[in-house]
């Protein structure tokens, strides 16, 4: 069981001695940074691009390229989220809330600094924990069935109230509407068509990446350009900066977020898009200054980004150990492994001893390189993204269109983008928070599929499903959270 740890020396020799591996790692990180910063692209796109190249590379070089892209693309999505309120990747959506609020205070460099720092720490922390607990991961992941996944989704819905900001009622409406929109298309259990109205384009449902590009991207473009003179935010340009006092205050927050992100990453199907919200909610609930959240709280940026990156790293492990991709990124990673003659699944560690050690090593080194590359490149990125909005927004709109088109490769992607763009604009105008809508959109299909699958599996004995130990523990936590949420709402009403 613990033999994997013994291969650490071999992994170092395989992955870190060859200078070509370092070169591919650097190339991967730079490409990952670019696709992560451009809204709508992201790790899946970056890794898919390299599949043709991986085919011709040696095993260690191919892995280095893929891991470099993966880590940097996941980590740099928060930069765009902070600077122009458009998440570079879906997983960076929670960073928009406080990152952009901080930028609006003229502290864009700090927002980018915290985002980059948290991404590096999240990946490194997650990797160290993965290395330590890797022998037990598969057995823990297998204990999570559909019922437990559904309970996690309910947990996700419960936090909508706290991320809604001032209007909880509108937050709930947005969350339910997001879930409902995610139901469009053929359902995931028996392929029954829902809300398709006979349109073949709607059979696959709405793409979550396009929806986010529309809600955040086109919505932001329309919202910003609606005024005669768009507000000129006082933003500073230069290299990202960090306030070490703030970091010192956030040590506990970072540790908590690494655990939260990693834990969610281990559950197939939930993914980093949800991890950032979970962690953000935990940080807000445990903060001494929860009222600062949504108004530029450094804690919020750090919690979201640490969890997002720890989760990205963590999500790879069950995908490799079980051979079941929990996300599109993991699916690309698994296909690349097949190209490299590796067989992901329970036999991976037997057939390729030392693989997990090597992966952990590459993740760790990639995170360090990403920190340096992001620091150096972010000066230019900040400069580009802080030019006057009236000059920048036309390009942002076109990049959103390109991102949407590249997500599915069909013209219908642009129609979706238009619909979600107008919806995002209206939501901003009428003070409906976009974050709960996005959360609903992301977890809706998983909640629906896992609940129905669980009930079908235990149709003759529901009690057996409810009394599963993991599920029972989750239900207790859910009830506690619900009661705490009600209490805090009452006390905030009294205030």
């Amino acid at each position: 069981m613990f033999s994997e740890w013994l291969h650490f020396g071999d992994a170092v020799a395989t992955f870190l001695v060859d200078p070509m591996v370092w070169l591919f790692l650097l190339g991967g990180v730079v490409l990952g940074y670019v696709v992560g910063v451009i809204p709508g692209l992201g790790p899946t796109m970056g890794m898919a691009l390299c599949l043709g190249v991986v085919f011709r590379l040696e095993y260690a070089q191919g892995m280095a390229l893929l891991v470099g892209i993966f880590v940097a693309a996941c980590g740099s999505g928060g930069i765009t989220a902070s600077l122009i309120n458009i998440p570079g990747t879906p997983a960076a959506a929670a960073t928009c809330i406080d990152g952009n609020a901080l930028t609006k205070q003229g502290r864009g460099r700090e927002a980018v600094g915290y985002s980059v720092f948290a991404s590096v720490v999240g990946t490194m922390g997650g990797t160290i924990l993965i290395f330590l607990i890797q022998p037990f991961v598969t057995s823990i992941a297998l204990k999570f069935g559909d019922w437990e996944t559904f309970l996690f989704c309910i947990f996700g819905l419960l936090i909508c109230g706290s991320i809604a900001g001032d209007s909880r009622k509108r937050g709930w409406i947005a969350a339910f509407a997001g879930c409902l929109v995610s139901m469009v298309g053929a359902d995931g259990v028996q392929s029954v068509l829902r809300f398709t109205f006979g349109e073949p384009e709607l059979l696959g449902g709405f793409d979550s990446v396009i929806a986010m590009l529309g809600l955040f991207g086109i919505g932001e473009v329309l919202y910003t350009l609606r005024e005669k003179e768009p507000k000129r935010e006082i933003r500073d340009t230069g290299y990202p900066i960090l306030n070490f006092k703030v970091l010192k205050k956030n040590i506990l927050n970072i540790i908590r977020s690494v655990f939260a992100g990693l834990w969610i990453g281990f559950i197939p199907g939930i993914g980093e898009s949800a991890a950032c919200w979970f962690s953000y909610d935990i940080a807000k609930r445990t903060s001494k200054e929860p009222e600062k959240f949504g108004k530029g709280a450094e804690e919020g940026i750090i919690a979201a980004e640490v969890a997002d990156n720890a989760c990205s790293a963590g999500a790879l492990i069950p995908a490799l150990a079980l051979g079941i991709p929990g996300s599109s990124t993991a699916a690309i990673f698994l296909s690349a492994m097949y190209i490299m003659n590796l067989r992901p699944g329970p036999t991976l560690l037997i057939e390729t001893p030392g693989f997990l050690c090597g992966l952990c090593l590459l993740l760790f080194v990639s995170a360090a390189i990403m920190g340096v590359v992001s620091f150096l490149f972010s000066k230019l990125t900040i400069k580009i993204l802080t030019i006057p909005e009236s000059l920048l927004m036309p390009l942002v709109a076109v990049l959103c269109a390109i991102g949407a088109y590249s997500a599915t490769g069909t013209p219908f992607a642009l129609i979706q983008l238009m619909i979600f763009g107008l919806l995002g604009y209206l939501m901003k105008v009428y003070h409906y928070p976009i974050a709960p809508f996005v959360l609903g959109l992301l977890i809706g299909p998983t909640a629906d599929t896992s609940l129905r699958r669980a009930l079908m599996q235990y149709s003759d004995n529901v009690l057996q499903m409810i009394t599963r130990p993991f599920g029972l523990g989750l239900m207790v936590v859910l009830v506690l959270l619900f009661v705490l949420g009600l209490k805090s709402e009452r006390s905030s009403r009294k205030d």
Partner: protein
Amino acid sequence: MKKAKLSQCAEGLIVTAAGVLFIIFSLKIRNNPISIEGPLNGIVQARFVPLVLSVLILVQGIVLTVALWRGKEQTETVGGFHLRLLIVVSLTVAYLLLVSWIGFAVPTVVYMGTLLFVVNKGRKPLFLLVLTGLYSVIALLVIPSVLNLQLL
């Protein structure tokens, strides 16, 4: 007085109406092709979760309407409707429709140029023209070639 109250509650009434509409659409979803035995068959139907969500929207709509009626909530909007907004929205909608129809090349150049001129009235035209050219090169040549996208 009643009219004023009703317009004050318009937002809540719209959400409530949307809830009712979603309930109707949810009820129209077909049954699962394979059913299970027992009382759980109703819950595992494809329409179950959408129906629950629609009911929740309806309930929230009613709660919002009551809150608006009592003055505990207010419908707040940012900015009003004006010509500039109409032009920006129309241009963006037209651009996305045109791209889905005839491709990226011409609509992208025209959209960026027009939008830059519309929202930057005080700036030098030559600067805006150069910027349009630069943005077009970035969007149509640089990014697609780096990412191996076929836009043209």
